């Protein structure tokens, strides 16, 4: 195996990032830009590696790197910790008290935004002022994560720390 073939997944990731940034800047559509960037990167990875026995591991490696890039973008989009860090950075060297921080970013705004997203994507539906599960994709993800939490941490959520430890 040549070094160039070994580096094919990295080349693919580079193309993925560049294509995703360009498409996102032009269209403003984050999720669609992620899909297009991933496809462009996979093509570049295959092109650099060539059609041989090394292509499958190269594509698996590229897939894992693409998954990381997707989550990097997702962290910037939805992660609470990143948003808090950015609020503190904007506040400068004086920082923020808990009250000042909560005035800028709090549970109410956070939940409203996520609830709107769930309703828009039909993951949750509303009937007579009550909410029900719609499409179950996000629910399946939640169940997988609960399974992993039980396996790794011995509890099903941060709020149930007394289950095992």
């Amino acid at each position: 195996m040549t070094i160039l073939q070994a580096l094919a997944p990295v080349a693919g990731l580079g193309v993925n990032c560049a294509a995703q940034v360009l498409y996102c800047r032009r269209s403003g559509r984050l999720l669609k830009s992620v899909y297009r960037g991933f496809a462009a990167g996979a093509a570049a990875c295959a092109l650099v590696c060539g059609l041989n026995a090394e292509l499958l591991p190269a594509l698996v490696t590229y897939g894992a790197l693409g998954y990381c890039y997707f989550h990097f973008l997702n962290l910037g989009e939805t992660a609470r910790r990143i948003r808090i860090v950015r609020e503190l950075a904007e506040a400068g060297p004086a920082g923020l008290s808990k009250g000042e921080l909560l005035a800028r970013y709090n549970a109410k705004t956070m939940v409203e935004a996520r609830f709107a997203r769930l309703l828009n994507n039909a993951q949750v539906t509303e009937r007579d002022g009550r909410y029900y599960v719609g499409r179950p994709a996000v629910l399946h993800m939640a169940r997988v994560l609960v399974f992993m939490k039980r396996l790794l941490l011995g509890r099903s959520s941060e709020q149930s720390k007394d289950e095992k430890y």
Partner: protein
Amino acid sequence: MKTLFWGNLVFFSFFLLHLAVWKVKLPVRQTKVLLFILFGGLAASLAGFLLFPSLSPLGFGVPAGAGELLAVSLYVTSFILAYMITYSAVEADSPTLVMIKAVADAGEKGLRKEDFFAAMNDAVLVEPRLKDLLTDRMAVLENGRYVLTGKGRLFAAIFSRYRALLGLGKGG
């Protein structure tokens, strides 16, 4: 196929070691210990490949030469990073997933919005993340004020600049 065989063997061996350690005692700084186990395992495996070049379990000779060693290193590194990023979702409760699970748990009678907001408050959603920033030394508490450390400022700059590059707002 050599990359797939050795890459999976190395990653899953040290993944099992991580599971065993977690069963014995959950580390305080989980991410740091996880990185140490998985990247330490990769480094030890690469050293093993160089020290024992004639090993050939199940007919798969150890990776040899710069290309093969690089391919296996990248394969394992990509899996480690993918697992690390997934693990962050295991460590902390995602509000969206907690919300959908609460709706599902309400079953056929459904969930009232007011009940929902009563359970999802700052103490549940914001304060644990503030505590994480202190644990991970991204911020310090000075006279009742949260102030970023150098690590926290670097973290903020990476995401701010990338979001600006994408032409997107604050997020969160």
